[in-house]
């Protein structure tokens, strides 16, 4: 399971131990903690239910009232694996990782140019980027299909990489820009005094400070790419299909095999869930404390 980064350093000294500031009322925080836990479990519950369903038979999956008492079975997972999850998984992984890396590579300098060292017309540029996300994909899919078809790039993983990059770039730029703006401008000044070029300033000064923001951005791009469905289903077929396209074959018109679908969805979500759990720990590191007076 996920680990908590807040664990205090283990002490070995016999002296008095450091502690958090004690607070006057003990019940307040405890109550808050309890509330937080309840809410968290409430949010997680549907997912838990989905995972549980994946271990049920179809019959157990839909009972009235819902039941927790069932004999777990791996049947559904077996079916899913038999359907040949491998290539889909590999395609998803490829498209997601490559596009996320590309997004970060393109967005980082762009966000920098739009925040810390703003170019003219920053607002317009930002607006342009976000405006590219305003056209509903469903409206644009036929033109895209036609272009991709003309380029003979249907069912090609690179098509997805390019489209995912374009799809996530505006978000990444916007997000990163917000985080970059948190960097005290004095630090950039210090870096330029210290003779750092733009690239190095970014790499050595800005990025370490905004790393939680970068992780958040990368995580979100990863999630969006991994779960992207519409491009994948319309532009790929036998070779470049991704996990969501794999998933929909379990949405059959002959009755809904929900246990099977749950197993497939669980498997599909597993990589991002793991990535999310790992990355979100990185989201909680202090940013620029102690930098300036």
């Amino acid at each position, binding site marked *: 399971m996920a680990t908590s980064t807040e664990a205090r350093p*283990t002490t070995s000294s016999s*002296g*008095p131990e450091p502690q*958090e500031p*004690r607070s*006057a009322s003990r019940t307040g925080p405890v109550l808050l903690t309890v509330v937080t836990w309840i809410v968290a479990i409430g949010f997680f519950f549907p997912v838990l239910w989905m995972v549980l369903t994946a271990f049920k038979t179809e019959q157990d999956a839909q009972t009235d009232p819902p039941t927790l008492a069932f004999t777990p079975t791996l049947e559904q997972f077996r079916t899913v694996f038999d359907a040949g999850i491998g290539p889909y998984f590999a395609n998803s992984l490829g498209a997601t990782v490559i596009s996320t890396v590309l997004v970060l590579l393109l967005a980082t300098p762009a966000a920098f140019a739009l925040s810390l060292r703003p170019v003219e017309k920053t607002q317009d540029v930002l607006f342009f980027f976000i405006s590219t996300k305003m056209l509903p994909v469903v409206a644009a899919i036929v033109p895209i299909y036609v272009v991709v078809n003309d380029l003979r790039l249907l069912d090609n993983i690179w098509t997805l990489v390019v489209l995912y990059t374009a799809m996530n770039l505006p978000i990444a730029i916007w997000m990163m820009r917000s985080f970059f703006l948190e960097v005290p401008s004095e630090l950039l000044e210090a870096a330029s005094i210290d003779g750092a070029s733009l690239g190095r300033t970014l790499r050595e000064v800005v990025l370490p400070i905004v790393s939680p923001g970068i992780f958040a951005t990368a995580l979100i791009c990863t999630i969006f790419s991994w779960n992207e469905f519409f491009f994948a289903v319309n532009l790929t077929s036998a070779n470049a299909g991704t996990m969501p396209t794999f998933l929909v074959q379990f949405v059959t018109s002959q009755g809904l095999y929900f246990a099977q679908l749950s197993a497939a969805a669980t498997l599909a979500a597993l990589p991002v869930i793991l990535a999310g759990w790992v990355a979100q720990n990185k989201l909680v590191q202090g940013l620029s404390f102690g930098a300036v*007076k």
Partner: protein
Amino acid sequence: MAEVVFEQASRIYTPGAKPAVDRLDMTVADGELVVLVGPSGSGKSTALRMLAGLEPIDAGSVKIDGRNVVDVPSKDRDIAMVFQSYALYPSKTVRDNMAFPLKMRGMDKAEQAKRVNDAAELLGLTEYLDRKPKALSGGQRQRVAMGRAIVREPQVFLMDEPLSNLDAKMRVQTRSQIAGLQNRLAVSTVYVTHDQVEAMTMGDRVAVLRDGRLQQYATPSDLYDHPDNAFVAGFIGSPAMNLMDLRRTGDGVSLGGSEIPLARTIRDAAGSSDTLTVGVRPEDLSLESDGGGIKAVVDVVEELGSESYLYAHMAEHPDTTLVVRGPGRTKVRYGETIAVRVDPDALHVFDATSGERVGG
């Protein structure tokens, strides 16, 4: 009405490392202004933060008005603090920064405005009231931080180097205003400063910290005249006291060939130690024009206008250096040999090993 007591209070930032504040025992009487001094990193800010409730107290306790406040959250301690790092609210104007503590206490708008305007007047910030902190100079920011504290009438004032970025003139002026305010409100105050003049003039008492430990806690003149140990002696006063490890000879110690007599009480107290650390302040050394006294060669002449300081080394022991105060316009120049006379009554004698004061 607030007496502040530190009782064996400690703070350890990193487990295993040495405490930033180490079993501090200190009482600030009601209405008293205590100045906290010490080298950089000696735990001054930490001590203030402990009192303010911003740092946990790892051992011991802190009491305000006889009540242990270890579990009282900062906001209920009724303390106003000037942070060393200012900690201004970046999204608020100067006016709102200063009004914030008043607003938090639900003071009515008119009274808030009045107080803020008064404080701004006092600190010369009137024309900047509508700016955001980002558009202020360093000293202006510091003044805003100051203003945010002094608009209140808290139980305790904590000021962490509140004037370090102000020019001498403004500092003198603000210093006396703070002292006046503190006096008028009779608010117990702990004031951290690196400025010798502030330390000597503002405090009812001065506490000297070193490595988290309290070295001496006394009135300024006591501290100056009777430092408890060589560290305090060297730390208080600028330029610092000349501290020399001298060999004992007969009734005194030997310096630059001549013997300086020591008082009987000191001799007795010193017992059999071979060497003593002897301190003498630059102003207790006088230049002899008639050739008598200890000979020293001048290395540096610092002219401050109203006085000058001669940095010199013993003609015979180049390793022993001395600072001598001279007149504002001295004729002495680099390389010259001067003759210095020591006032035997002004000697401070310390144990060479422990650094503790020997005798009275």
